[in-house]
């Protein structure tokens, strides 16, 4: 059984490297296409980590949802006028740079505080088996409010998209 533990260890570090490499690619690539594909690689790494943590359900949902999401992001990116030789570097200057730093540091601090306050239990004391039943019951009973709030965020995004699209159309008509 020792062999399986070694394999698991190797897989864990493999997924970690995949996640960080993908993230680095997403931030540093000069082409939009490469950046979004870096994001896909990173999300695959995260899916692998979910699998490693014993929840194949979450891992598979991650792949299923984000493959479609990444594809749509690429299509949107290409349609918004990104030619292959257009560089992304000019986005990182002036006001954009300030906003980017602000957004990133907010996210970093929020995550840092949240992670710092969490007490991590060793794998042996993990409650529940992270199966579909466990995830479903927790989402719909214990974390019901968070679940509903996430759907409000999605609703806002949908309404925003509709308003943007309608605005464009009416301008053309007038």
């Amino acid at each position, binding site marked *: 059984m020792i*062999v399986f533990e070694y394999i698991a260890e190797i897989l864990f570090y493999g997924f970690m490297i995949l996640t960080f490499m993908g993230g680095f690619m997403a931030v540093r690539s000069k082409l939009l296409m490469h950046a979004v594909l870096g994001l896909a690689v990173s999300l695959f790494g995260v899916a692998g980590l979910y699998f490693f943590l014993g929840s194949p359900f979450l891992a*598979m949902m991650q*792949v299923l949802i984000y*493959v479609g999401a990444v594809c*749509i992001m690429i299509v949107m990116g290409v349609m918004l006028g990104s030619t292959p030789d257009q560089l992304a570097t000019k986005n990182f200057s002036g006001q954009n740079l300030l906003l980017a730093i602000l957004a990133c540091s907010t996210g970093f601090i929020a995550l840092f505080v949240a992670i710092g306050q969490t007490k991590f239990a060793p794998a042996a004391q993990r409650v529940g088996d992270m199966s*579909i039943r466990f995830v479903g019951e927790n989402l719909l009973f214990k974390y019901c409010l968070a679940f509903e709030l996430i759907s409000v965020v999605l609703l806002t995004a949908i309404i925003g998209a509709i308003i943007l699209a309608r605005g464009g159309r009416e301008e053309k008509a007038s």
Partner: protein
Amino acid sequence: METLHSILPELIRIVICAIGGAVIVFGNALVMGYAERKLAGHIMLRPGPMEVGWHGILQLVVDGIKLMGKQLVVPKQADKPLYMLAPILAFAPVFAPLLLIPFSDKLQGFDIDVGMLVILAFASINVLAILIGGWSSNNKYSLFGAFRSVAQNVAYEIPMLISLLAVVFMTNTFSLREIAAAQSPVWFVLLQPLAFLIYIVAMVAETNRAPFDLPEAESELTAGFHTEYSGMSFSLFVLGEYANMFIVCSVATVFFLGGSSGIPLPYFEYTGALWFLLKVYALMFFLVWIRWTYPRTRFDQLMNFCWKYLIPFSLVNLLITVVVVKLI
């Protein structure tokens, strides 16, 4: 030594599963490649391939050797790493779902409790491969084909998932083996006829086959996303397509056509696979049949059909299923 002894059965099992998967992928491509050309020929009142071997039976072997010998052309302005990656990405993910398909009670690589999701997740990677291939070719036709593929696959994934969910609600499990076993008296195609119809339509669209083969519509887009591909990189796309056909037909068999159930043969735990393959290839024949019978749809018709009819109907079907399951 003892550790090796304990993992050896599992290792042998993994190797056998991998070999079995490869045999299915290549064997299926050979059979379907020949059957498709022959059937297409007979549907159009011409004989199809006749020259190589008896009734052209060796045609696909010869074609395979020809394709392997061909030069791999990379367009000058293409994004080379992505251009080479795309066919591999289209072909490699088909092996994972094959390990999970329950060919019969005992002929299954692995049975995990989220089998259905694994299959759908790995099948959805195909569209990313098509998009990467179409974009990196740096050709307008390829790009249009790739865009159509994304719009089509993302849309048709929804009714496909929802129609399968209706069956999942009836069986309370995602495990393919348990779903196949749950329909021992009555197949789900009789209990869920609407879900079956929706799945069949979505299945044709998901595998990018005519009448929904808009991503490679040769009369408008030359050859769509694989315009620039030649030789083996083109054949990897085709192998991936045939393997995906096999996978979606297997899922239809498991969910609606009773898996490996049929008239019992001796050693049914293993020979049930014959019934399973019979059902899968009957569905594949259906796919080929409609491909060569119906003309291609227009793209707006395709998208309207999905968003305005298939998704509402599948949602209603799911709702009725939930209510009925709750009441019984």
